[in-house]
């Protein structure tokens, strides 16, 4: 299916080969507009896949909540570290 050589910047992440990862990362659009559009795209993909359907399940919202829990645990880790039961693991 190699009709023509697609430039690296336009490939999706899963199609990028490991060796090209650095150049792919460098070619991404890091302007504020680019970041906002990337966030918008991600939101739309998630929304249209899990929430904007006729019979959605708990998964759409539950995954967001679990992600939120994980993120908040991560940001609090430096504080939670002090509750550890053993010093050496």
């Amino acid at each position: 299916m190699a009709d023509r050589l697609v430039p690296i910047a336009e490939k999706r992440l899963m199609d990028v080969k490991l060796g090209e990862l650095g150049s792919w990362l460098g070619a991404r659009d890091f302007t504020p507009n680019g970041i906002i559009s990337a966030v918008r795209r991600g939101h739309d993909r998630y929304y249209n896949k899990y929430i904007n359907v006729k019979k959605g399940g708990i998964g759409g919202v539950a995954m967001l909540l679990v992600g939120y829990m994980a993120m908040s645990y991560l940001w609090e880790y430096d504080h939670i570290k002090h509750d550890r039961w053993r010093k050496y693991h």
Partner: protein
Amino acid sequence: MLSRLVIVSANALKGSSPLGAGLVQVSRCLHASPQSLSPVAPLPEKGGKVRHGIIPEELFQLLYPKTGVTGPYMLGTGLILYMLSKEIYVINHETFAAASIGAVIIYGIKKFGPSVAAFADKLNEDKVAKAQEVKDSAMTSLTQAIEDEKKEQWRVEGRSMLFDAKRNNVAMLLETNYRERIHMVTNEVKKRLDYQVALQDLQRRMAQEHMVNWVEKNVVSSITPQQEKESIAKCITDLKALAKTTQAKVAV
């Protein structure tokens, strides 16, 4: 399940009109070009599959070729044990709180999930049914309008026949009127001519009678008594002769 309530509330937010469902669909194609006039694709029936409520199915599909069905579960168990043993996840009072809350939430979802889902589905269906009703009534009224229009066109075709009939009527009226007047005219003329004819007849008759009377009078006055006696005597002799001839005839 909560996503259905999200949809319902989104619909309510976008105005509880029959177009609410359509507006939610419009919000899907925000990233499409604004000039696309193709009909919006219908909402997919089910969302992306999620196992145990929090892990998307894609992970399982990713690991299936290499590790089979139990692969992701092994991975999950290994990760949990690693995090517990290295105390990346620390067990403290929050763990207990999270466990209790999780238990309650999971129990609630398992017990009331289907009924809430059915309720939200019913709300959605009502909205769709209302929109469908509007569409159906619009369709029927438009088809009715089309039929009425066709009927009017058919009527217009007959209008020429109507005018022909009316024209015939008017022509007949004119004809009868004309004939009446002709009749009257002939009658009047005939009356006048008859009058003239009668007048002439009268005149001739009167002249005739007058002449006859005059001739008679003259003749009578010209008959002298002498001539009268002679004519009477001749008559008598004629009569006698006649009588003799007839008697002779009878005798024979």
